């Protein structure tokens, strides 16, 4: 079972990249990916209600192919957001939470204060996710994940891109160091970087059970990303865990 734990549907906004559900499934058929764990770009960039509703429709249309993240553009929507999260996890069968710290990049030297995972406004939703064991995919720096894991030791956080984001200056070594410190922190191998040894180093440091594969489609090519795991010099069992078994286990442990 291969599950891509990091897929964006819609217009991702960077470099004009976009993809539809249908196109993503067609691609997955070719790459050998069984399930796509998706966030809708509308949710993360504009309106979580509209984006998640579109994702829910796709989950009904493709029940065996698409898993859904509740994806939020800002934790500052109070009760409306918390009610939405609860409804989508328990009534609509979503499987995770996607949150971004946006966006200090190599092109911008400032961050948007209303999009930070360390924002105290995010604490209530992390408390809920901790209690229900909902995995959280966080596009955030190693430092932000360190702080959040310390504050929420029962929260299951997947550090997107192994922390090697533009905001974190591509520093996946630091991501591994922080993951070594927190047993509730997972590393998502999705990354523009294909630095030889990064997958092997992650497995060596924290073991294969806390490493999760994703593609970041359509920003990145799913072929390119899956090959990073397939060609890595690690054993076959580790590859199976990373390519699907780990995320499947996390999803199956959500409290119903």
């Amino acid at each position, binding site marked *: 079972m291969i599950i891509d734990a990091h897929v964006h549907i819609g217009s991702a906004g*960077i*470099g*004009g*990249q976009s*993809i539809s559900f249908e196109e993503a499934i067609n*691609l997955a058929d*070719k790459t050998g990916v069984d399930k796509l764990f998706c966030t809708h770009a509308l949710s993360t960039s504009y309106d979580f209600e509209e984006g998640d509703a579109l994702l829910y429709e796709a989950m009904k249309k493709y029940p065996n192919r698409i898993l859904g993240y509740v994806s939020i553009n800002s934790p500052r929507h109070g009760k409306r957001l918390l009610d939405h999260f609860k409804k989508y996890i328990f009534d609509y069968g979503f499987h995770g939470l996607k949150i971004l710290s946006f966006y200090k990049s*190599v*092109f911008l030297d400032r961050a948007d204060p209303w999009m930070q995972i360390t924002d105290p406004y995010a604490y209530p939703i992390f408390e809920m996710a901790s209690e229900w064991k909902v995995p959280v995919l966080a596009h955030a720096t190693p430092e932000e994940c360190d702080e959040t894991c310390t504050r929420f030791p029962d929260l299951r956080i997947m550090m997107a891109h192994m922390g*090697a*984001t*533009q905001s*974190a*200056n*591509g*520093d996946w*070594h630091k991501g591994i160091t922080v993951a070594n410190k927190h047993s509730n922190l997972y590393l998502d191998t999705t990354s*523009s*970087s*294909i*630095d*030889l*040894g990064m997958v092997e180093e992650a497995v060596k440091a924290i073991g294969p059970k806390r490493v999760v594969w994703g593609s970041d*489609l*359509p*920003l*990145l*090519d*799913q*072929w*390119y*990303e899956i*090959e*990073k795991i*397939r*060609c*890595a010099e690690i054993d076959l069992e580790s590859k199976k865990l990373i390519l699907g078994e780990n995320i499947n286990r996390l999803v199956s442990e959500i409290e119903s």
Partner: protein
Amino acid sequence: MVIDITGYIGKWPWWPNAYMDAGLDKFIELMDKFKIDKSVIISTKSIFYNDATGNEEVFQAVEKYPEKLIASAVINPYSHGDNPAKYVNQCIERGAKLIRLYPIYHRYPLSKDNPKLTQIIKQAILHNCPISIPIRLLMNWGFLFIRVGELVSFTRSFPDATFIIDAYNYPEFHFLLELAKERRNIFLGTMCLTMYKGIQESVNAIGSKRLLFGTGMPLQYPACSLITVKESEIEQSAKRNILSLNVKKLLKNCGNI
């Protein structure tokens, strides 16, 4: 046949790399593992320390593996007194088929008003030698990169030169394709192209004859760059162009004045 336009030899100063640490034979082993027939190599020493000593390592490596390796030379305009053109000649005489420039690491402006740099470009033109300007060393956001506007202005100043703009990715993608559409002397190197449909859209924009396959191995996993070309939805003939034919054609005239 597969020819890689960017293979690194030498040491990697910033973290352990099993293949670079083990030396040249291990590099060849990695090429063989992924069925890369030839690699146009560069020494990291010539980027981070001194161009001439790094280039010397390249020439020696090519002497050892002439069937597998092709020499490229890094030139720092400020390392050769008033006459960098003379060093260009020496490198080409030693077998360099490509000149590479690293303005960020050698701390000089990429400007047509930079006289020593202009001397290098003019000498390269004289020898039919392509000039590679990598935007970044590898696809890791920690490394500095050349701003695309600067690159475009510079390359437009030398219509007779052949430029390879290597290591482009989504921040530069549309801008560079527009430049390449306008200027036939621009080639693009794929070693950092991570975008979904990046190869396909590049071919749609400028055709397949000015795209050059690269891996950045062993700093990057070569398999990732290979599969993006092999699985892209383009004609088989276009894949052959990108994977080997273009670079063969491009480098063959270097030194034949």
